[in-house]
């Protein structure tokens, strides 16, 4: 049998490591202002947020559902979605975080990177 003290130590170590890793990953800047929108792992749009001069709306529609994205100079967010959990909408604006906006039910991911993918439809 394992001692309770050992268990507590293991759990505390995991917790501290995870907190450190989260802080490191989330506070790290994305290193760029190009928003790549992926659907099913495939690049759909590559939007250079710094090159934008006005508000742009993108509608991503599949047989799973609809997400409406709004890009403004320097930031992007999911304005509305018909998914059940609304996690992607609640995320709010993505400005310089390395953490992506995810809509798991619709398999949609929005991630900031440094480079534009030349093969993608730039700016929609």
């Amino acid at each position: 049998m394992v001692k309770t003290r050992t268990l507590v130590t293991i759990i505390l170590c995991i917790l501290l490591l995870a907190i450190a890793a989260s802080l490191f990953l989330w506070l790290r800047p994305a290193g760029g202002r190009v928003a790549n929108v992926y659907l099913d792992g495939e690049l759909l749009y590559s939007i250079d947020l710094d090159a934008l001069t006005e508000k742009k709306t993108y509608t991503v529609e599949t047989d799973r559902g609809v997400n409406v994205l709004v890009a403004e100079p320097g930031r992007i967010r999911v304005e509305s979605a018909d998914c059940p959990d609304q996690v992607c909408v609640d995320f709010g604006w993505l400005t310089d975080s390395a953490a992506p906006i995810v809509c798991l039910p619709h398999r949609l991911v929005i991630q900031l990177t440094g480079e534009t993918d030349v093969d993608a439809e730039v700016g929609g």
Partner: protein
Amino acid sequence: MNLKRLCRDAVLTAVALTIFIVELQIPDLLPIPGVKLGLANIVTVTALFTLGPVDALAILLCRILLGSLFSGNMMALVYSLSGGLLSFLVMLLLKKILTAKQLWAASVFAAVAHNLGQILAAVAVTATPSLFIYLPILTVSGVVTGLFTGAAAQFAVKRLSGVLKN
């Protein structure tokens, strides 16, 4: 399967489902997919430690399937299943080395394993490895919620094991 066992497991499944549906009404604490209390796991842990692996697995699978159906979120099924099964496996292994008083720890590791399983499924489904960036924060959330549900399950086992076993 005898009638008594069937009824007992059905009642526990109903309890788990009720908790699951009620928990859906609680607003998301953080805009991160997968951060939730996981209160229904209290029933899984309780069943595993009082009734054994077969009954607990049956209750878990019924709850996940019916829960996805009732919440109208069938697309969440694959995430729930991979998370649920991985956490069940971890609890099964831990059950062999933990005493009844250390039951809460099984729940902590189970919650962390559940979130890991969900991320693995999400990475596979969306083909987006960068989702692993959510692993640390989901681990923190798993430890905290696992402690809570683990403590609840430990109380439940202490009070209910006499009722459930006979």
